[in-house]
Structures are given as structure tokens and as C-alpha cells.
């Protein structure tokens, strides 16, 4: 009998109390639970959407220069200038944060024939790197009478 009373007081009564309280809590939180369920569904959909957008964004930002590509980027521009018989001089400004990326101003001074300089502008569009040309200045280059033209390109490049 002692055992029965013990189990009654220490097991059954607390358990029934607990069950009753859980039941009351579940009943009270039913609305919130429904909200949470719908939130879970929305979260799943959102997650799929986010992944989709991220994939598309990454396709575009692949043109942003990574740390490993810094030297390759400089070589690419220099080689392009050399290929088109243009004297070129690059200067890259400090990196500034923009969203989760970084950007920096780049100044490219080229000297050579106008046709080659226009070709240079065409070629940099085809590079794998994203280079946004902001302004272009032309002045006469070299000695008087030469067909040399100085072109200064002010552009922005992006880093990831």
C-alpha cells in the first residue's frame, strides 16, 4: 500500500498534472503553432528562392576579381595593350566596400593609334572581368604631327 501511495503521489499525480499542463499549453499555442507551421513552409520556399537568386547572382559576379586573380587581371590588361600596340599604364585605387563586394577605381592611360584604342575598349568588354568604364578622355599624344592619341580610361572594377 505504501508503494501504491508512493507511486500515486510521486509518479501518477505529477504526470497527470504535467499532461494536463502540456495539453493546456498546446491548446493555447494552437494559433501560434499554425503560424509556425506556415512559417516553416514559407521558409522552405524562401530558401529555394534565395538559392536560385544566389546562383544567378554568382553567374554575374563571376566577373568580379577574386584575390587569386589580381595578378592575372593586371597581366590581362597589360597584354591587351601590348597586343594592340598601345603603351599602357595602369593605376588602381583603394578598394572600397560596396554591399558584400568591393570596388576600386582604375585608371588606364594608353598611347597609340585611335583605332587601336577603340579596339581596346571593345576588347575589355569581352574580358572575363567586369570593368565599368565611366569616362574616356582623348588628347593628342606624342610629338606634333604624329597620329598618336592619348586615351585615358577611368573605370571601376569589382572584387569579391
Amino acid at each position, binding site marked *: *500500500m505504501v*508503494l*501504491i501511495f508512493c*507511486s500515486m503521489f510521486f*509518479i*501518477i499525480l505529477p*504526470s*497527470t498534472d*504535467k*499532461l494536463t499542463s*502540456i495539453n493546456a*499549453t*498546446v491548446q493555447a499555442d494552437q494559433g501560434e*503553432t499554425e503560424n*509556425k507551421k506556415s*512559417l*516553416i513552409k*514559407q*521558409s522552405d520556399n*524562401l*530558401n529555394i528562392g*534565395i538559392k536560385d*537568386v*544566389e546562383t544567378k*547572382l554568382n553567374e*554575374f*559576379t563571376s566577373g568580379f576579381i577574386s584575390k587569386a586573380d589580381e595578378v592575372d587581371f593586371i597581366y590581362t590588361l597589360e597584354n591587351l595593350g601590348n597586343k594592340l600596340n598601345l603603351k599602357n599604364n595602369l593605376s588602381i585605387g583603394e578598394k572600397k566596400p*560596396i*554591399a*558584400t*563586394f568591393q570596388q576600386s577605381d582604375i585608371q588606364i592611360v594608353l598611347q597609340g*593609334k*585611335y*583605332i587601336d584604342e*577603340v*579596339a581596346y*575598349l*571593345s576588347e575589355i*568588354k569581352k574580358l572575363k572581368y*567586369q570593368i*565599368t*568604364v*565611366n*569616362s*574616356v*578622355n*582623348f*588628347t*593628342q599624344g606624342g610629338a*606634333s*604631327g*604624329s*597620329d598618336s*592619341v592619348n586615351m585615358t580610361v577611368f573605370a*571601376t572594377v*569589382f572584387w569579391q
Partner: protein
Amino acid sequence: MIKLNLVPEYIKNDQKLERILALNIRALLILCFGFFIASGVILYAQLSLQDAYDDFTAQSNLIADNSKDYNNKVATLNNRISVVSKIKLENFDWPAFLEHFSQNIPPNIIVNSASFNHVNDFISLSVIAKTREDLLALRTNLVASGIISSFEFPVSIMLQKENIKFEINSQAIFSLPQAPVASSSTTTTAVITASTSPEIITASTTIKKKTTKSKKNSPKNATTTSNILTAPEASSTNGIK
């Protein structure tokens, strides 16, 4: 049949009581056993339910917390998208624009320097016009092409008849032509040259004829136009000022 009743009555009662007691004890034991089983089931149910409820609460709280992360993630993503959109919008077809610009410089205009700022939509030109009419033709072409909305020459400039030096600093519209540019006597010629020699002017006129035959606005055309104009080993009479 003889029925013996040798056992005393009190012993019989004792035995009866013993049987009742044994029955009661057995019933009590069965009851205890059932009670313990029931207790165990209830305890197990309570613990399981508590666990399940705690799990659900923790999970839903986690999701609620994650939804805050999603908000941050979406905000970051939107920020990135706006940056990328801006970058895409800023992409400009410079070679095509320069070709378009070149086509609108009359033959007798020498452009000593040119500056095109796509960010501020500003254009700055330093030109020398052979005649007043050439300068007016330049204005007409630039305005008609939509590169410049309008600009006026000072009267002092209009008083000059030949070799007029003039600087144009104006807001510009960096757009590409929608339709092919119609060939006219005042369109299609050089961009940057440092010469005013008759040879160059002749060369420009020749190019005009060639380019009007070829397809307009093609990069190839742009290259040809610029190439021939800048190719001659022209002797410069006017340097960059």
C-alpha cells in the same frame, strides 16, 4: 454416506479467513501490478509527450530565429542585386558611342581633345573649325544626333570666319542611335586628329563615301572609319592646345 466433521469450527474459520486473506493478497498484488503498469505507461507517455513538445518548441523557435536570418539574408541579397543592377546599367557600349560621335563630326572640324563622362553625362570638346559654317554644322549634328541637347555659341565666336577655336562643355546624352544614321554631307568623319592639312580633309571625304556604302553602326565599320582617318602619316599643323 457418512459426513465426518472432525475439524473444529474455529479451525475452519481460520482456514476460511486464510483463504480470504490469500485471495485479498493476490487481488492486491494484481492491483499493485496493474497500478505499476499504469503508472509506467503514464510516466512514459508524459516523458515522451514532454520530449516531443520540447522538440517541437525548440524546432519552431529555431525556425522563427532562422526567419530573422532569412530577413537579413534577403536584405543582403537585395542589396547585392541592387549593386549588380546598377553595375549592369552602367555598362555602356563605348566603341559604338564613339563611332556614333565620330559620324557627327563634320569634315572640317578638328577635335584637339575630347572628354566623355558617362557618370556625369558630360562632354567636353576642344575643336577648331575651318569655317563658321563648319562650326554651325557641328552644333547642328551634335544636337540632331541627340548627343547634346542644345548649346549656343558666344557672339564673339560667331564674328570669326575661319580657323575658329572653340571649347564645348555641355551636358550630354550617352545613348546610342536607335536607327541607322542617314548619310549626309555633314556626317561621317574623323574623331581625333591633330591635323588640318588638306590631305586629311580629302581623306575624310573619301571615308565618308566608303562608310555610307557599308552597314552603319557595325563595330567593323567603326574600326574602318577610325583606322583610315588615323592611319595617314599626316603632318600636324595644329597641336593640342
